[in-house]
């Protein structure tokens, strides 16, 4: 029968294809004519938006830069980087499989991690089992210290959500002490791991610091109209508005607040505030908006990094939070490999654990696999998203309060 034949044909083709890719498996690399670096990032799926800004441009910039200088310095020769990459399609299962493929089939020397908390956690055990260094630059997890202990090969550069919330509250306390704001705070969060973690950490911190939480709700991912929420909050007239949001809703909340004329003294939105897209979309209205992230925008290292990033990525700017951290992680990896002088993953891991590194975000020496300094609060000032908190960070600027009123666009 035709249909049965077609099914058999389809089946045979698929099996033939499977055999073909088994036979076609690449031969193991010869004595270091290139360093094979593999990664699986989310080019498609819900994570693609974040990966497209933070991870992919940095990985490509780094490889381009290293190879332009001849490659990684192993001993006294320079060996170019060869990249093997896959698309994890924003799925934990795909990411896990892609990494197994990189480790067992492609036999890469080093692996760069995927984007986001969920995927980094999904591949954590795999990288640990196979002994690869795991430098996670886009994962925010409260269990970072525990993970670092469980997987000593893993390095969690972006910190914990408790850190984010507490730094923010610290800043608010300081500003209240200076008489710039009152006690009333409205808080919204996206109903996703990130938003919930941050609001769960912020809530007790705010209460302990004697702030009044006049509005405290979360909304589902995919909410397309935040007007009811913003309108209600406006009516409560809080001094501080905090929104632990993702890029689509960060933009929507800002837009809606502008339209409704909602001008709290402090306006803080979550992921996406630090994206160049935010500045492009709102222009002068971005002035004074606070958000998660930030960097030392005046430092020469950052300025050079910004220029290089734009040049290598067709004018695209990095985001002002995890981009620089991701790139710093790559620099650390490079320095560790070059110090060890050969492809010895265990030695590289040791070096990452104990060494001091010179990166775009300043000197970095990890303690228990975690950094000692994070940028948690930034603010758009004069067209740049400067880090303002923790205030003790090197290069932290003073906060500008109150936020200037929204202008017509």
């Amino acid at each position: 029968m035709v249909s049965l034949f077609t099914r058999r044909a389809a089946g045979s083709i698929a099996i033939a294809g499977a055999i073909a890719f088994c036979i076609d498996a690449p031969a193991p690399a010869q004595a270091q004519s290139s360093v094979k670096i593999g990664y699986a990032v989310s080019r498609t799926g819900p994570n693609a938006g974040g990966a497209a800004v933070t991870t992919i441009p940095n990985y490509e910039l780094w490889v381009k830069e290293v190879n332009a200088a001849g490659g990684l310095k192993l001993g006294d020769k320079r060996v170019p980087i060869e990249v093997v990459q896959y698309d994890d399609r924003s799925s934990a299962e795909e990411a896990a499989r892609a990494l197994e493929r990189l480790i067992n089939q492609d036999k890469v020397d080093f692996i760069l991690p995927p984007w986001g908390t969920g995927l980094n956690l999904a591949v954590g055990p795999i990288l640990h089992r196979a002994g690869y260094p795991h430098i996670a630059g886009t994962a925010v997890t409260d269990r970072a210290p525990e993970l670092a202990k469980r997987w000593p090969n893993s390095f969690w550069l972006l910190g914990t959500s408790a850190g984010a919330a507490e730094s923010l509250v610290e800043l608010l306390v300081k500003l209240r002490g200076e008489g710039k704001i009152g006690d009333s705070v409205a808080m919204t969060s996206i109903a996703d791991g990130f938003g919930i973690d941050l609001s769960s950490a912020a809530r007790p911190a705010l209460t302990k610091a004697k702030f009044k939480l006049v509005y405290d709700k979360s909304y589902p991912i995919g909410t397309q109209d935040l007007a009811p929420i913003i309108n209600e909050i406006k009516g409560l007239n809080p001094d501080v508005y905090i929104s632990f949001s993702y890029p689509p809703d960060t933009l929507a909340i800002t837009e809606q607040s502008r339209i409704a004329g909602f001008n709290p003294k402090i306006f803080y939105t979550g992921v996406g505030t630090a994206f160049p897209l935010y500045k492009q979309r709102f222009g002068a209205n971005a002035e004074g908006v606070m958000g998660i992230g930030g960097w030392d925008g005046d430092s020469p290292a950052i300025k050079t990094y910004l220029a290089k990033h734009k040049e290598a990525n067709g004018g695209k700017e990095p985001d002002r939070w995890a981009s620089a951290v991701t790139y710093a992680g790559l620099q650390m990896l490079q320095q560790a490999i070059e110090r060890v002088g050969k492809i010895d993953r265990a030695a590289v891991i040791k070096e990452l654990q104990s060494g001091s590194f010179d990166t775009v975000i300043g000197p970095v020496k990890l303690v228990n696999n975690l950094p000692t300094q994070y940028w948690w609060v930034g603010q758009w000032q004069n067209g740049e998203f400067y880090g303002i908190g923790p205030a003790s960070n090197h290069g932290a600027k003073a906060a500008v309060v109150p936020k200037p009123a929204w202008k017509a666009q």
Partner: protein
Amino acid sequence: MTNAILTGLMLGGMYALVAMGLTLQYGVARIMNLSYGEFLVAAAFAAHWLFTAWALSPFVGLAFVIPVSFGVSYAIYRILLTPLVRRAPNRDALEVDSILATFGLMFVVQGILLTVFGGAYYSYSFLAVPITVLGETLALNRMVALALAVIAGSALYLALTRTRIGTAIRAVAVDPSSARLVAIDVTQMSALAFALGGAMVAAAGVLVSMFLTFSATTGVVFTMKALIVVVMGGIGNLLGCLIAGLALGLSEALVATYVDPGLTLAVNYALFLGVLLIKPAGLFGRAQR
């Protein structure tokens, strides 16, 4: 309360606008088009490009996007979907087949968008001006979207009820074999309806791009919303589509204001399921068996 209701109406208007094309495609051509949202996003990208690269307002963009998508949808129906139509033994089989085929189409369109635009978020601001209505401040672009939804819906309704072609299309929606008996070219009418649906979703895409952030992968969200509105309103029924859209929008806004914003989408689905359980063919639908 006024605020919640007005916001709800605008949101509902947007849902109805987005869903109108699908009710045509499904109600008449019997194609359960899972790639529907991708066409909306493609139109949004087109509007974005026209706005940022050529400084053309989305309203001007409509003039380009609508005919192009009409043509593309017509071609898709003729080339891709007609073989399915021809071989389906009955309408149920066609529906199921079209689900699977348009699922494949969804991947193809999404893949093309990803290749061209990447996975990044796109957004632009147009007509995001506050205007005061009944003492409440609303966004002008959303109001315009609602107004255009009403205009488009009315125009469509008039076209379907007062013109010959419109009546022919409705005849095909009711009973294709009988329609054939009165010399209506069913294939042609179905293709027309499908193309018209494609034009409508492109218009919706251009309009919502004024105030929503989108990326190559956000198409599925729109497809699901449209499906819910269409099925809840009764397949092929424009009025049902409008009412269902408004109901969903209002419920979302009211729940967000008075209950908990976290339950908005759950209430949406619950409403949808509830309607189906009470009236299995949708609010205004006709029982199919």
